[in-house]
């Protein structure tokens, strides 16, 4: 119910936060929304020695279109993303379904991305649309493609002295559509199974780019490259999407657990992939 003792420092700039993080090492955690970290600390699954609170750093709540990407700063809350006019497709579709409405007021997209929970939603969305994570350390900034950033269960590519300052989500160049279909037992539960589908169409209506990623059915959020490859260059069709659904069902590694059998979860992946791709295509076609 109550966390162990820790030291608390409120940073007022990114440089200060980074310096404090570098000084503290592995047992120092960044505290933004805290909606993943604090629950773990309350049941003592995590007991960091120091927390660096970044909630007072100005400018980190940015949500802004810049060139070909959508910048989402480290303090942009899920609710801010959901309310923003600047989102699109799969991002817009997923945002309202993160956690519950009160947690969305506090938790951040970047925090969720950094947390790398395979049952978390955002990393599937970003794997489908494409994104880069901007990490700042004592030696400066670097950009990490989302596929490289998500390394394992609760494991990201950050060094101990780095923090995420923003995520840059690739904005589609052409006609596009995207949908996030999430099966959850109730609002606030993690996804039992979820599918993020993102399609960009050529002028002739064939698929130029396809992004398909799955939540809660593998050790990390899973980009289904095999299925994506079968979609590129093809005209959207029911059969095409059903075949992609079959590949996605085969590619994932769900487990039997209290949310359901693995066999059934593959069926949901199969079904949701088909439905999500069809909805994404319809969106892209302006229907």
């Amino acid at each position, binding site marked *: 119910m109550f966390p162990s003792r820790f030291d608390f420092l409120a940073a007022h700039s990114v440089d200060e936060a980074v310096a404090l993080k570098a000084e503290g090492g592995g047992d120092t955690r960044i505290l933004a929304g805290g909606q993943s970290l604090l629950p773990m600390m309350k049941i003592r699954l995590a007991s960091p020695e120091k927390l660096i609170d970044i909630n007072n750093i100005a400018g980190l709540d940015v949500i802004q279109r810049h060139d070909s990407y959508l910048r989402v700063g480290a303090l942009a809350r899920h609710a801010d993303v959901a309310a923003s006019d600047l989102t699109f497709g799969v991002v817009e579709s997923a945002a309202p379904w993160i956690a519950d409405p009160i947690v969305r007021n506090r938790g951040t997209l970047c925090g969720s991305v950094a947390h790398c929970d395979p049952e978390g939603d955002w990393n599937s969305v970003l794997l489908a649309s494409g994104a880069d994570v901007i990490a700042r350390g004592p030696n400066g900034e670097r950009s990490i493609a989302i596929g490289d950033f998500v390394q394992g269960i609760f494991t990201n590519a950050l060094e101990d002295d780095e923090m995420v300052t923003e995520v840059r989500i690739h904005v589609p160049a052409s006609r596009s559509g995207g949908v996030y279909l999430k099966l959850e037992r*109730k609002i606030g539960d993690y996804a039992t199974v979820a599918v993020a589908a993102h399609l960009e169409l050529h002028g002739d209506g064939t698929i130029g780019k396809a992004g398909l990623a799955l939540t809660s059915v593998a050790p990390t959020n899973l980009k289904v490259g095999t299925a994506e490859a079968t979609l590129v260059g093809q005209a959207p069709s029911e059969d095409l999407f059903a075949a992609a659904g079959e590949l996605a069902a085969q590619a994932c590694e769900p487990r039997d657990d209290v949310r359901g059998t693995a066999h*059934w979860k593959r*069926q949901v992946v199969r079904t949701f992939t088909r439905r999500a791709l069809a909805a994404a295509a319809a969106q892209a076609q302006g229907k």
Partner: protein
Amino acid sequence: MTTTAPTTPPEIGGIGHSVRRHEDARFIEGQGNYLDDITLPGMLHMAILRAPVAHARINSIDASAATALEGVIAVVTGDLMAQHGLAWMPTLSGDTQAVLVTDKVRYQGQEVAAVIATDPYIATDALELIEVDYDILPPITTPQQALEPGAPLIRDEKEGQTDNRVYTWEAGDKAATDAAFARADRVVSLETHYPRSHPSPLETCGIIADVNSVTGQATIHLTSQAPHAHRTLFAMVAGLPEQDLRIISPDLGGGFGNKVPIYPGYVVATAASLLLQHPVKWVESRSENLISTGFARDYYMKGELAVTNEGKILALRVDMLSDQGAFYADAQPTKFRAGLFHVVTGSYDYPVAHVSCSGAYTNKAPGGVAYRCSFRITEASFLIERLVQTAAYELGIDPADFRFKNFIQPEQFPYHSPTGFVYDSGDYPTALRMALDEIGYEDLRAEQKRAREEGRLIGIGIAHFTEAVGAGPSHTYDIAGLKMFDSAELRVHPTGKAILKLGVKSQGQGHETTFAQIVAEELGIPVTDVKVMEGDTDNTPYGLGTYASRSTPVAGAATAMVSRKLAEKAKIIAAHLLEAAPADIELHNGEFSVSGSPDHTVTIQAVALAAYTNCPDGMEYGFESVHYYDPPNLTYPYGSYVVVVEVDADTGVWKVQRMVALDDCGVRINPMIVEGQIHGGLTEGFAMSSMQWITFDDDGNCIGSNFMDYLVPTAWETPKYELLSTAVPSPHHPIGAKGVGESATVGSPAAFVNAVVDALAHLGVRNIDMPVLPDRVWAAIEAAKA
């Protein structure tokens, strides 16, 4: 009649008015007085160390590091409790239960030690410093496993206990039932498990024990649905003199049966307060509440109906095995080992039945009777309504028609059931007909047919339940020997205002309003002039408390009776003031008049004043009385619920499209409050049918011990309900009311499950156990296709 029309004007607010609740004033301003809101000077905080494993011998406990932590006052272990004879305590079912482990752990989450500290954060820190050496033993996780020959003995400390069986019990006539089965055209059977769930009120359980040896007073603030019974039991178990023991049950954030048992934490906190001479507060966390306090259900049931080919039920046979956890601790009337489960014959007319019950110990928390179960009528009602639905499919008869064919008819009341219940009143056919008409049943069946042709799965589920509440008559019912009367004490002050004190205890049911309405009805004192008090054993008459929907049937009757006692005295005083004969005095809406001269009146307020200032010669001054009501029978509310669902054939996900719920609880004191109770109960039924359960893995780890795993639906998942009512009064209740608190939780799960099964019935699917999870639904569809 469909509703109770009020006979008093709104200013008086008697029966039938949807009076807005008096108690709301403090709750809407955040001024409720819940247990954790209370602080006492010098108060210490207790935290409990709980076993991480389900079955293990404890070799040693080293609390030295914990005791040394700054802020820790004491660490209590089983050994210390044993020195005071408190390591074990009696249960309400005649068993014993460990307070703190002295020999072995018998369920995951069991209480092993307690830390008393100056601050709850420090108490939690200290828990991590206690070292316990466990020798893990093989756990028993199902009652079937428990009863296998050679199964490890869970209650090895109990003298004479040679296996894991807890009880056997039966009701009805086996020979006659067997004979009826032998004659039957067909036997329809159903095996189903009603899974373990948990009442989980939003406020967890807690205590502040303040035992003061200087004043000799022990004041126990306790989340208690039955403060008087708790006081007597505390006095007996802890050896505290009962006159100096005061239990105060404050505002309760829900109960649903969770606040009826006496928990080890209560005993440890009380002992700690006695030893340390400081108030000791213990408020459990949600995880503690779910893993260790009184769970609900966990009945494995097999039901068989003997039927004719035309669809008439001849007999019912039921065999049931219950999972009782590690200690048999149910609060239920002592004559019955399975509560009122033997009311399983349901709403149908047939002459014979036999119900055979047994229970087993397992390595799980104790409990079973809880979560608005009406003493196991949730289980009984679920079985019969699922069985009746199954019979309809097997005979090729529409499920509604099957019920109409077999209903107990209105003229058969009072109805003597084959297992000894006497149903007081009802009109089942009218109720079901109304519910079916409201939902458009025939049109829905046509739509279902069309949908099937398109490959869509629509299902219509019916449940018609009969409850048995208001325990109960002293000839049959007692808990730990205490008869199940209840009480009301009423005093009217000189200014005509009144105070009503009750032996029951609200946890959200609105007693401060509804019981005042009974007084308003009987005496014509405006409802806002009646203050209702409950929960403080020094200031209320003795009662058995609020659970099993008994407050209105028993304490409500007591309230009516005590009001009538005062009405009788009032008439004599009025006669004195009006210079007439008492026999000529009439009371109407708070005014006394002489029959035949309606203009010659005196108010109840004037009479109240006279009771203190101007009594007739020879009459005792004052204006108060008490009534202890021993009900002559239970009351039998009932209802017809109809649910429409659509099932997604590709994923097994199902959604409620509509639900119509008709309830008949006799006279409704406050229709608004009755509807609120029904909304809540339907939601609990929906939860259990769709997502809410506690299960265990093979190692005895509890899955469902926090709100991430034990699922309570939000407003987004919860269906919308359309409520209807009929109101056939209870003939034996002073105001004709039956009580309704648990009806919807009892009746609705079968309606939801019947709906999903109905959606798949044409594929040959007959049963899916609760919770009806989407993977189970999809698997049933796949299996049927194969």
